[in-house]
């Protein structure tokens, strides 16, 4: 009997862990150390003066990611000076998404004039830790003491097709709220984009 109970307990916890993977609002995010397109390693601890971060999981090949490249540059230009720089991370496995190779990251960043680090999640651990599922998938982190608190998760805005027709710029609104000392509303939206390419998934 006891073994049956412990079996169910183990099963229950396993299911629980599977569901609790990834961050929700208010969680403390972990720092990382990932290779940038200039071959240098980047960590969030490299930015002692930042008030927080706009961590965006994105890539080269997904049409949604491409549609947002210019908008991500605009967000970085506007909010870096206010303390919230963009940190872009490519979570895809180039073995199954050849467009998302490191070499192509370098050329996309150059062509689109990226003003922010574009890091590669080579071990595909960071995206899992954050719970990202799409590209692009945004996590806004706010520094509180030595913690990085997750304050917004989701989409950049409500119109991936046309930046001029956006009615709710979710990410910019969230950042404006944090800068003004209030909480983002909404604090979560559905990230819109392609699935993350990982051969160990599904």
């Amino acid at each position, binding site marked *: 009997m006891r073994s049956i109970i412990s079996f169910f307990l183990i099963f229950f916890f396993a299911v629980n862990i599977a569901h609790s993977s990834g961050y929700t609002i208010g969680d403390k995010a972990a720092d990382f150390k990932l290779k940038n397109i200039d071959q240098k390693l980047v960590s969030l601890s490299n930015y002692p003066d930042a008030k927080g971060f706009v961590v965006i999981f994105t890539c080269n090949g997904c049409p949604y990611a491409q549609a947002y490249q210019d908008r991500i540059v605009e967000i970085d230009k506007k909010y870096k000076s206010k303390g919230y720089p963009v940190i872009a991370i490519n979570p895809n496995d180039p073995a199954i998404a050849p467009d998302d190779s490191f070499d192509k990251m370098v050329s996309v960043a150059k062509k689109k004039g990226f003003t922010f680090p574009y890091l590669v999640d080579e071990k595909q651990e960071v995206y899992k830790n954050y719970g990202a599922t799409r590209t692009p998938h945004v996590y806004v982190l706010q520094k509180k003491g030595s913690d990085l608190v997750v304050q917004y998760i989701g989409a950049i805005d409500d119109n991936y097709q046309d930046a001029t027709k956006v009615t709710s710029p979710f990410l910019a609104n969230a950042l404006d709220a944090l800068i003004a000392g209030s909480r983002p509303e909404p604090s979560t939206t*559905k990230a819109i984009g392609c699935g993350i390419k990982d051969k160990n998934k*599904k």
Partner: protein
Amino acid sequence: MLGQPLNPQVPDMKNIRVLNFDQFEPSLHLKNDTIYLVNFWATWCAPCIAELPAIKAVEKKYSDKKFKVLLVSLDLPGQLKSRLIPFVRSNKITSDVVLLDDPNQNRWIDQVDKNWSGEIPYTVIYGKDFRDSYTHSFSYKTLDSIINRKIKLP
């Protein structure tokens, strides 16, 4: 060259209708004797493309039954001519295909299914008295057994 058929060898391809969510939504709630499979996909989505042959084969198997497939593409509308139409032609897809042109996915995803993250492939199989959703790629065997079971319902 004017007026010459594009490619006489491809089977009849129905026009791909471009719809916003409000125009498309009735296709999720038809009430008659037919069983509908509504599959959300895109040409850039590898697991979606992987399951298309299974959907095509099942559609063919039950072509004399009251079973209908609707493929709802989430390709960018700007890529209709450059990507979607060539893909549908070269893969000889004869199912109904619509391009869902409604960028506010945060609005309409919940109207399809509150529990759906928006990730594709995503499939709704429904009839007048049931409705099931699936968030994984189908194998032929799995899909065939689901449709077979549904069609046998009284």
